[in-house]
């Protein structure tokens, strides 16, 4: 055992020297008894999969090959190893790592669509070609626990999960989200490592873009050598619109979140009765999802609720939405938002700063909250005491008339991004809701918000009708009625409805949908680059 270990370590040093010379930072993570903890094996996997061909064929050219966890942009350094298809190199690396060719790896995934199954078949074939046998299966039952059960010892294992490889994704609101889970003790598959922890701390240490950039450069170089998870491709998002719809200058952006798309100014060709109706999807089947986990995926979340700030298509804050003005101190530790005058909920009740305070406090007690939002709120002074029940309110939040003041214990670089996405909910309707069963509250059968559209009629599993909110602070929307049907991306009903002319706007990440939508002559498809990386997770812990 010890001898094998030494041999492996020596091998790593050699491999590092062979393949990574040229990069300034040379580092290797600890290798344990699990062969996948050997970076050479992970590199071999990366070399073995011909992502260029997969993207070109299976994904129909509608994705970008990934060379890092982080999407392309200013924070990506030059010279990252793209791990272009090189089966020969993969075989050499495996030979050097003494790969046991009789071993069969277990690859798991959780998407139910055909494209994923095809992709898995392709990965299986490519890996078989270099001598790595795998089988793949879709996880059933308790998917979350099977993916995320962390080991008792975050550094030495053994693993609490049974799979070897996992196909998954990370959608991020902010760049840190790609790396923060890999802090020691954060994930089920990758052993903790002090060097990595330090690099992660660096990207979170400042809200100064230049300092962050330096941190991002460093951690991506580190990642490119260690491949703790193997980035496969960057997912694009495809917005589709029928030729009946005109955005009148509204922007296009990351439709998984909220941004200044200007839906109040959209117009649509009237039907034979002169009524302006726009059809879309994502109507609920059983209940409306609370808007704090998926911040902007569902139509209801986007248009029925409103947020304090407005952001652009790349999700950077550009001004107030419900906030008349806002201010953040130079050290980033205090912030204040002043609401516009005369804001009301769809039921006519006044919307006040107390609703904002209520929303933040409620969010702290609800388990299913978006990680970025949660990170902002847990940075608030007194949030811990409130969460544990020791305090009745968060001391870091104070209300002064129309103004809400926040003070933070620790810096959150994404404070404004949070308030560009965080929907404010009505205290008068939700104050008695049980935070632990928030989603089960009757409110979510027909929610009341303060957004540009209000819900007029709900037929669960059939359709939802929205009409303009006459008292919206940004003006009354021009489309008379929006009708949403229950279909989602990657689901045959989306294409069915679109073909039948019952779909004027929507978005999808499924490249199969895109080809079908483009085939409809009245539909245009607008690809949008979004931060969304598909990757292979690798269980590097020793097995039980």
């Amino acid at each position, binding site marked *: 055992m010890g001898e094998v270990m030494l041999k492996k370590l020596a091998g790593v040093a050699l491999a590092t020297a062979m393949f990574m010379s040229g990069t300034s930072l040379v580092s290797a993570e600890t290798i344990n008894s699990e062969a996948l903890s050997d970076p050479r094996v992970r590199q071999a996997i990366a070399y073995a999969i*011909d992502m260029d061909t997969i993207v070109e064929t*299976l994904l129909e050219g509608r994705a970008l090959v990934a060379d890092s966890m982080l999407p392309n942009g200013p924070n990506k350094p030059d010279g990252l190893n793209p791990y272009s298809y090189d089966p020969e190199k993969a075989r050499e690396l495996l030979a050097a790592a003494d790969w046991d060719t009789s071993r069969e790896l277990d690859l798991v995934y959780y998407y139910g669509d055909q494209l994923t199954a095809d992709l898995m078949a392709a990965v299986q*074939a490519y890996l078989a070609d270099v001598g790595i046998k795998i089988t793949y299966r*879709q996880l*059933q039952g308790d998917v979350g626990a099977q993916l995320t059960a962390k080991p008792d010892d975050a550094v030495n294992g053994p693993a609490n999960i049974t799979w070897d490889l996992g196909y998954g994704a990370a959608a991020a609101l902010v760049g840190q989200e790609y790396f923060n889970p890999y802090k020691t003790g954060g994930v089920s598959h990758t052993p903790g490592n002090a060097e990595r922890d330090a690099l992660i701390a660096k990207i979170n240490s400042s809200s100064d873009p230049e300092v962050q950039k330096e941190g991002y450069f460093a951690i991506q170089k580190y990642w490119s050598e260690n491949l703790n998870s193997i980035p496969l491709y960057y997912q694009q998002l495809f917005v589709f619109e029928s030729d009946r719809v005109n955005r009148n200058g509204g922007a296009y952006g990351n439709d998984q979140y909220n941004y200044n798309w200007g839906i109040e100014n959209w117009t649509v060709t009237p039907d034979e009765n002169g009524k302006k109706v726009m059809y879309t999807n994502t109507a609920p089947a059983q209940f409306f999802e609370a808007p704090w986990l998926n911040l902007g995926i569902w139509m209801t979340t986007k248009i029925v609720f409103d947020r304090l700030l407005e952001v652009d298509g790349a999700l950077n804050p550009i001004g107030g939405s419900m906030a008349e003005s806002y201010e953040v101190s130079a050290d980033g530790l205090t912030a204040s938002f002043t609401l516009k005058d005369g804001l009301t909920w769809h039921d006519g009740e006044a919307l006040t700063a107390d609703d904002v305070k209520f929303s933040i406090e409620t969010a702290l007690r609800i388990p299913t909250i978006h990680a970025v939002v949660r990170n902002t709120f847990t940075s608030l002074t007194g949030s811990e005491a409130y969460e544990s029940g020791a305090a009745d309110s968060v001391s870091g939040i104070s209300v002064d008339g129309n103004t809400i003041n926040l003070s933070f214990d620790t810096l959150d670089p994404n404070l404004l991004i949070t308030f560009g996405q965080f929907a404010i909910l009505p205290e008068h309707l939700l104050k008695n809701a049980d935070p632990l069963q928030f989603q089960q509250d009757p409110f979510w059968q027909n929610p009341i918000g303060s957004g540009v559209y209000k819900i007029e009629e709900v037929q669960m599993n059939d359709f939802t009708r929205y009409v303009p909110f006459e008292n919206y602070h940004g003006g009354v929307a021009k489309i008379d009625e929006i009708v949403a049907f229950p279909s989602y991306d990657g689901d*045959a009903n989306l294409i*069915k409805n679109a073909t039948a002319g019952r779909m004027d706007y929507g978005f999808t990440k499924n490249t*199969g949908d895109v080809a079908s939508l483009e085939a409809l002559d009245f539909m245009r498809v607008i690809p949008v680059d979004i931060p969304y990386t598909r990757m292979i997770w690798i269980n590097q812990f020793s097995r039980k």
Partner: protein
Amino acid sequence: MSRRSLDRKFDRILELEEAQKLSPSRRNRALAKLLNNRLAVLGIILFSIILFSAIFAPLLTDANPLKIDLRNASKAPSAEHWFGTDKTGRDVFARVLYGGRVSILVGLGSGLISAVIGIIIGAYTGFKGGWIDVLALRVSELFMSFPQIILVLLLVSIIGQSLLNLMIIFILTGWGGMYRMARAQMLSLREEEYVQALQSFGLSTASICYKHILPNALGPVMVNITLSTAAFILAEAGLSYLGLGVPLNIPTWGNILNTAQDLRVLQNYWWMWLPVGTVISVFVLSVNFIGDGLRDATDPSQQG
């Protein structure tokens, strides 16, 4: 006739009986009838063609059903790929042949095993009677109180998806019909004089069941097996459609046909679903033809 000579005569009958010399010739007549039924013959031919092409798949195609070729994906049928290629460039013809192995195994295997289990339980408990009969009857009623698909889905959600699990589920949901039939046969037959006579000779229960009662029930048994085989093959396809069938890394008819869910495939790539859809339908149809022929051939009320 003296008592001794009567004993001797019975001993001789018993001997013949045990040597199976007295086995009924009805089966041969049934077979002849079956072969006279044109649809049944057609069924047997189609069934055999599909079954043997699946079994001898390697002789019929060199293609590996798992071998991908992304650059040659979604190609229409050609001399090289008789049924074209699928979205990852796998040979659809090879997949249909190899997929047939699994699907037929699931259908026929589950049909046979559930029949055997049903017969064993039905024959034994029906013959024995008493509490064990009541228990078996209640358990079968329990299973039969569910609409089939609801029970299958419920069991899928309980024991999870895998090839073996699917067969277990089919067997669990399928044994009841056979059991009831076997039991009913048993109840009526055990009252028959010749069975009672055999019993009084001291033949064991098991051997009476095996040698005298089962041959009489063979017709309905075969009919039942064919019907459940057809039903299981269709169920496998249906479950694949719902995403709750055999895991996708195993090619089965259902998993291949599943691509038809994608409207684009349905509209543009007929070769990815039409051949396999046809093969499933023809196979099930042939099984139904055989079953129907068997029913006609073995049902005494339909003689003449």
